[in-house]
């Protein structure tokens, strides 16, 4: 327990030193959301219809772009190999990494989501559903991303291939997440999708760190 707290502290203080990086995914999501009114036209009715979907896709793209940072800096300065040898179980190391990664990349985007919703005229009353589904969805995407990103460590520049590998894995998350917002907007029951995402989260919280550890060992031999 003490060891994992030390790990968490190390990752957090590293992130704190580069705290300006946390603004980037936020700005990126904001800009994606700004592009849509420019492309679709500024009619509030039409924007309101697609607002939930657009915000979801913006989140997904933002999480995709920062995925590579999860292990990359640790790999480059060699500390990842030290962590592999450390007397702490590797899944625990990865779990703490994913937690810090989520706090510094997904949470900022979540924080400006109310602003995005206002920009795109999201109908009143949908914001809580959107926030709930995005919170669950971003956790799921970070966990899935941890498995996929570990596999690409053997490649020097992994930007595009990582996106190609991760996007098919994100499909169910997007379908349920954006689907819950859509059904809420139609007045249909939307909790079912949320529960399914919760179930997926419970499953992945247990399995993903372990699978990511296996992937990491494969990638680094």
């Amino acid at each position, binding site marked *: 327990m003490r060891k994992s707290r030390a790990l968490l502290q190390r990752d957090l203080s590293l992130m704190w030193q580069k705290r300006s990086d946390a603004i980037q995914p936020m700005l990126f999501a904001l800009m994606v959301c700004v592009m849509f009114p420019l492309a679709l036209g500024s009619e509030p009715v039409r924007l309101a219809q697609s607002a939930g979907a657009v915000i979801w896709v913006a989140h997904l793209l933002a999480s995709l772009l920062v995925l590579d940072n999860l292990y990359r800096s640790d790999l480059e300065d060699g500390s990842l190999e030290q962590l592999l040898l450390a007397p702490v179980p590797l899944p625990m190391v990865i779990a703490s990494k994913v937690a810090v990664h989520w706090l510094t990349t997904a949470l900022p985007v979540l924080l400006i989501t109310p602003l995005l919703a206002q920009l795109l005229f999201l109908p009143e009353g949908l914001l809580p559903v959107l926030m709930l589904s995005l919170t669950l969805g971003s956790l799921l995407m970070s966990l899935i991303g941890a*498995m996929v990103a570990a*596999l*690409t460590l053997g490649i020097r520049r*992994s930007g595009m*291939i990582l996106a190609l*590998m991760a996007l098919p*894995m994100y499909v169910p998350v997007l*379908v*349920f997440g954006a689907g819950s917002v859509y059904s809420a907007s139609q007045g249909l029951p939307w909790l079912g999708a949320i529960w399914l995402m919760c179930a997926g989260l419970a499953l992945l919280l247990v399995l993903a760190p372990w699978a990511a550890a296996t992937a990491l060992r494969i990638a680094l031999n």
Partner: protein
Amino acid sequence: MNKIILWFNQTGSPARFDVFATRWAKPSFILAFLLLAIGIYGALLSVPADYKQGESFRILYIHVPAAWMSLSIFVIMALQSAIALVWRIKVCELIAMASAPVGAMFTAVTLISGAVWGKPTWGTWWTWDPRLTSELVLLFLYLGVMGLYSAIDDRRAAARAAGFLAIIGMVNVPIVHFAVTWWNTLHQGETIRLIGPSKMDSSMLWPLLTLVVATKLWYIGSVLVRARVLNLQQETQKQWAIERYGDTP
């Protein structure tokens, strides 16, 4: 040792696998061609046209075997990768990686033939039917595996990483199918159903079964050829390869 286990262990060695692949690739291709010819003849000429869909239903004889293969090859790929990861059998890695392009081709054939069939029957090239959507995601998964395999320099590490991706993808496929089914019933409206399991008359069935067997044999043939090439690429410096094929790679 049990004879079957012994055979599997021996064929697992790269040198023996090369002999095995060389011997069996050609017969499977020949048999596949023969069955393809018979099946296509049956599908295009001897079977009567469907009373509801007319001639366009004949695409089904390409579409259905290809769709079955696209799924079963993915399962084979994931299984071989799992075996390769657990027991580190090199030939299994090669078979898994050789399966990926073949499976991707079958998936593409399924999608294209489905689109060609959909245009006259449904009036559209594409609908967001759950089956179509999951098939498309399956194609992306294949492409991801192939992309990862070609991106990593070290061949064995590449095969293991791509194999692991195939295993994750294997878990993903049913979830995607479930998700898009849920999503589509949500968006409901005027979804056109695929023709149900209409009881096929036996006169219409035999070309289908022939083609199903033919595609299986085709897959075996092409996987053996591809795996043999991958095998030789990695073993050029080995004694047996030099003895069998000469020094220059």
